[in-house]
Every structure is written in structure tokens, then in C-alpha cells.
């Protein structure tokens, strides 16, 4: 099974998903991220999806859940780099990730975190 690396950047965590996500990997990632938030006390997370070429309902649910769960633990998550093709597919699936903050790329994701956290 693949493991998605989670980097620490000051008070934030940075994740760049580079592999095809199978269900196991997604579930493992959910667990790893929450664990890492717990250990580091991170207040913000950027998950970059630039290299992801497909998000189906399962992965969308895992992502949405991880955002809500992190929120409960006091960490704001921003999703960045969702590709146009992926966005259109999500819209067709009826998945809008309504309460999830988004940004164009990692850099703007970090800016967004700063704004959201009022830092």
C-alpha cells in the first residue's frame, strides 16, 4: 500500500497527493492526517490535488470527511489545485464540497489559511 507523505511547515501541514488514490490509501491518509494534527497541534492544512486526475464519490467523501474531522480538531483544511476536468466531474456527480475552502495553488492556499485563521 502507498502512503501519502505529510509535511510540516511551521503551524501548518502540507500534503501533495501525487499518486493514484485507491480506497485503502485514502482511508490510511485520513488516519495519518488526523494523527499528525493531534501530534503537531497544527492549525491549518493544505491538501494539494494538482496531480489528481479523478475524484469519484468515495474519494470525495473521504476528502470531505477529513475536512470536517480536522475542523473538529481545530485545524482548517484548504483544498488546492483541483483540475477543471475533476471539478466538472464532481459537479456531474452532484458533489459540491460546499463547506470546504479552496484555492488555486499551494501558495494561495497558504494565503487563504492566513486569512481564515486571522493570523
Amino acid at each position, binding site marked *: 500500500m502507498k502512503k501519502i507523505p505529510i509535511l510540516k511547515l511551521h503551524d501548518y501541514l502540507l500534503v501533495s497527493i501525487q499518486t493514484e488514490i485507491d480506497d485503502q490509501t485514502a482511508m490510511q491518509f485520513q488516519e495519518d492526517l488526523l494523527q499528525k494534527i493531534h501530534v503537531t497541534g497544527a492549525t491549518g492544512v493544505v491538501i494539494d490535488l494538482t496531480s489528481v486526475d479523478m475524484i469519484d464519490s468515495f474519494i470525495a467523501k473521504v476528502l470531505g470527511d477529513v475536512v470536517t474531522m480536522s475542523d473538529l480538531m481545530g485545524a482548517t483544511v484548504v*483544498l*488546492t*489545485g*483541483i*483540475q*477543471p476536468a*475533476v*471539478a*466538472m466531474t*464532481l*459537479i456531474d456527480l452532484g458533489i*459540491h*464540497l*460546499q463547506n470546504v475552502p*479552496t*484555492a*488555486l*495553488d499551494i501558495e*494561495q*492556499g497558504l494565503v487563504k489559511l492566513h486569512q481564515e485563521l486571522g493570523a
Partner: protein
Amino acid sequence: MDTKFKKIVFENSDMIVNMWMKEIETLKDGNYTSSVSDELFESTNREFVNVIFSSIQHRGSTHVVEDFSEKLINLGWPLSYITDGLQVFRRVTIDFILSHTERIDSTYISELIRSVDLWTEPLIRQLVNEYSGSWEHIVSLQRVALQELSAPLIPVMDNITIMPLIGTIDTERAKLIMENLLDGVIKHNSEVVLMDITGVPVVDTMVAHHIIQAAEAVRLIGSTCILVGIRPEIAQTIVNLGINLDKFPTQSSLKKGFSAALNMTGRDIVENQAKHKQIQDMIDSLSRE
């Protein structure tokens, strides 16, 4: 037999060409090519007949045929010029060979027709294919141009883009709008896009639905869509239909939308006077030292 017919045709090519040219001339009047100058018509005819002969000789020499059909497309001549031309060639050739043969029986005639058909058939197929192929190419180019026209994206300044929509929005166009919108956002790295619907005559549930979907997709890729150009009657329709636009920033005019966009990207319009004052301050501070 075939070789014999070919020999007759090539030995008398000048005469056959002349007969062909004469017949083609008569087709010109009151026809598709009537507006064409005589010189151009004649030179094209010559080229055509050369193509025919070289194709018979080489059993279809593709690139000559290709060049010729492309030329016809560029001239804007119709397909019937090709089919008429080959039809006339068939008739003229058969007439010529028959009139130069002493003993004629039905086998001879059928062999002759078969031979001539075999010469012209591949040519007709190839020319028509080339011709329609080039046409399709042109049409598809035009379609692309039209698609771009129907959903243009204008980067007005760093991080701010405008998409003015004009005309009716159906499902097909809505898809295109969304694709252009998202690709444009990525290309121009736009933090804010203004979708201007001033020019959309009717906003019903379907159109509103498409617009909302586009705005949602824009949000997913990490940008913000501001809907501008909401006329009074559109505001009424939206509320009466129970469409919820709460989640999206909207403005009545492009102008208002643009200042909202500036605001969102942390910018402001600074009057020149302020700049003057800044410069004045700088000069003042300089002279103090």
C-alpha cells in the same frame, strides 16, 4: 484491350483535351463558375485535365490530386465542377475512341466503357474524398472559432477575468462555457471571474442551474465567481422560481462587480491626486535631508 484504349487516348491526348475544354466551356455560362475570369477558368481546366491524365497514367497519383482539390476549395468552386468535369471526360473519351474505331460490336463497347470507368472511378473517389475532407477541416476550424466566440474570456488585469455572455444558453453551450471558464481561470491564474449575464435574454430555471453549476465548479478549482448584470426582471425570476443564489456573490452591474473583485483581491482604485500627494511627500522628505 485496356492498354490499347490507353494508347489511343494518350496518342490523341491533344484532340481529346480540346474536345473536353470545349464542352467544359459551355458549362460555364449561367453556372457556378460564371463569375470567374476566363483566364482563371481556362488555366484551372488545363490543370484539371492534366490531373486526369496523370492519374490515368500513374493509376492515381495522390499528391497531384490532393493539391488540385485543395486549390478548388480555396477558389470556392463547388464539387459539381469535379463531377461534371469527369463526366464530360468520360463522354468525350468514349465518343472519341468509338469514332476512331472501324469495327464495333457490343463486347467492344462494354469493354471500352469498363476501361474508361476504371480510369475515372478511383479519381472521382479520391477527388471527392479530398474535397470533402478539406471541407470538413474548414468547417471544424470554423466550429472551434465559433465556440471560442460563444464563451470568450477576457483577462482584464492580474487575477481578474471577465466572461461576458451574450445570447441564449442551452445545455451544449453551458458545457462549453464551463470548460472555457475553468481553463481560463487556470490559464490566467484568476482569483476572481466576473460572469456578466447582461446579454442573456432569458434566465429560466435551466439557465440559472447551468450558471450555478459553472460558479460551483469555479469555486472547486479555487477561484471565486461573481455573477454580474442581474437585471430587475432576472432578480424577480430567480426569486419567483425559488432558485437559491445565496452562496454566490452577485452584483447588478459589471462596474460594481469589478470593484468587488478589486476588493477581494486586496486592491483599490487610487485617485491620481493621492499619488501626487505621495510623490509630493517623497520630495518633501528628500529636501528635508
